[in-house]
């Protein structure tokens, strides 16, 4: 199992609502491409933050890639994330004043995964696979199109060979051709690297790219009880 959640409860300390997340038993097998859909603001991102240890649950246990997140210190969580999990968000995936190469290098430097191999070669081949024009590699990313930026975000997410990739509405700001292009590149890379993909979106049109589809309210008991 790549992800396993048991009896999870979580609420933000400043929230009036009792629980934002309440999950009895939920797991994701390794190598899956899982699509979770649900309306905006229902707590999908909160679930993702729990999975990668950015926030800790009020109750229950989470294990990711066979390791229990409950037992890790904040520092260990930072390390664990850097080494094992890749992310792509709707926006702000890149530090906008750095170039594509600098952004990807930065991500690799926090991880232990790439210490031995030739990182520059790996970055170039990733950017080539993702069809980012080579003249754009060294320009600050805020001068590039959103489509380009999201493709660079995929490269950044894959640089450390993550076993788990988390994508949170990454296609929301893309137009249709870029979106299909993005989805096919993302899923191909996941298959090549045997990376488990956890993808959340409100856009059910994306369903056909995945082998497993779940409704968020089926996972989260709290979500239906608003």
């Amino acid at each position, binding site marked *: 199992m790549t992800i396993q959640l048991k009896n999870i409860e979580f609420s933000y300390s400043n929230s009036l609502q009792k629980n934002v997340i309440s999950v009895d038993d939920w797991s994701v097998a390794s190598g899956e491409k899982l699509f979770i859909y649900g309306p905006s603001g229902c707590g999908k991102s909160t679930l993702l933050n729990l999975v990668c240890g950015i926030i800790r649950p009020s109750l229950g246990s989470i294990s990711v890639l066979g390791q229990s997140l409950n037992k890790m210190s904040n520092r260990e969580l930072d390390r664990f994330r850097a080494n094992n999990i890749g992310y792509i968000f709707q926006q702000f*995936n890149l530090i906008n004043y750095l170039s594509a190469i600098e952004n990807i290098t930065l991500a690799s430097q926090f991880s232990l995964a790439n210490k031995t191999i030739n990182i520059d070669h790996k970055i170039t081949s990733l950017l080539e696979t993702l069809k980012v024009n080579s003249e754009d590699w060294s320009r600050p990313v805020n001068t590039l199109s959103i489509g380009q930026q999201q493709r660079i975000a995929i490269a950044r997410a894959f640089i450390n060979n993550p076993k788990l990739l988390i994508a949170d509405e990454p296609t929301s700001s893309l137009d249709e051709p870029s979106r299909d292009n993005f989805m096919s590149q993302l899923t191909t890379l996941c298959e090549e690297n045997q990376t488990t993909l956890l993808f959340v979106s409100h856009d059910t049109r994306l369903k056909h790219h995945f082998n497993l589809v779940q409704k968020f309210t089926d996972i989260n008991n709290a979500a239906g009880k608003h």
Partner: protein
Amino acid sequence: MLINLAYKSLLHRKGSIILTIITISVSIIVMLAVDHIRQQAKLSFSSSVSGVDLIVGTRTGSLNLLLYSVFRTGTPTNNISWTSYERISQKPTINHAIPISLGDSHQGYRVMGTTANYFEYFTYSNKQQLAFAQGHKFEHIFDLVLGAKVAKTLGYQLGDSIILSHGIGRTSFKNHDSIRFNVVGILAATGTPVDQTLHTSLQGLEAAHLTKPADIKRLTQTAELTLSQVDDLKPKSITAIMLMLKSKMAVFTLQREINTDKQEPLSAILPGVALSELWQTMAVFDNTLHFITILVIISSLIGLNAILLASIRERIHEITLLRMVGASAGFIFLLIELEAIVIVLLSTTIALVALSFLLPISQTYVLNHYGILIDSNIISKTNIELMFYFFIFTVIAAIPSALSAYKGARNSHV
């Protein structure tokens, strides 16, 4: 990686960062300049006289004697007799004795009668001798040597002739108008009360006080009598004596001897001790400047903090992203601290460069207008300490911002 990221990040926000650096630089300039002036004023004050081991006057308080003999303010309570001067100057432990006589003025500036030895042996600051900007010391009975400020303010030049007034007010009712004094020398600026004094010979001063028309006629008709030709014009009394001893060891013995003199009530003071006593009475001035320095430091640190906090709000996505790719909280903390350190180091450098240009330019102006001699070298022990403390305080002051960056990154819901 940390340094490269901090560098790129600062470069990306160069507009606001440059403004920040300018603000902090100005604060550091004010901080260093105020403290420098404070130190220099103190130094300038305490260097009004040096090399003089004892000042002898009539029986009076040490501050009073110092004020009228060195600073030429206030009034002597009484004079001391010429015979006492002759007796004391003969003592074997004494190297030089300089008699001074005060009481007359010219347009509000004090006139001091003395001997030519004054220009040879009186020293100020770091044992510096008096230097002539123009002309030479007095040789004839009615020769006059002006302090730098007197000459500048009143616009006198060599060869001008001047009437002295009796008493020390700016407007005197009694002028010594039968006798005119000639300017033969102008001293270089010293930043001490010497600049505000007119110097003449004791004989000249004595002649100015003659009342019999026949005596005055004798002196004024024979043009250019040298000082040695009028030796008979001995003053009956003088205001004070400055003593330079052969050996410093004898100071206290001699002071006791003079203070317990049987023939005339005299007192001898150590100018260094009296100067520091006097400076202590000016503690308010000293403390005010200190207080200004502290206020400047506090305000600039608050400013820096505000700017850092604002920049963190602006960079919350960047910080969140760094956390997501695995940057530890410590890394984020260091990033913000490093930014504060870079800002303060750049600002300090700019401030030092600016001051090293500004000080030499303002030096002459300050000396001429305020009589304070400012050293153009800003690097003193206290200033290095100040800069060090400023640096440390910056690092401490940036902690809340750095912590908020870390917390912000933890709580942001991506």
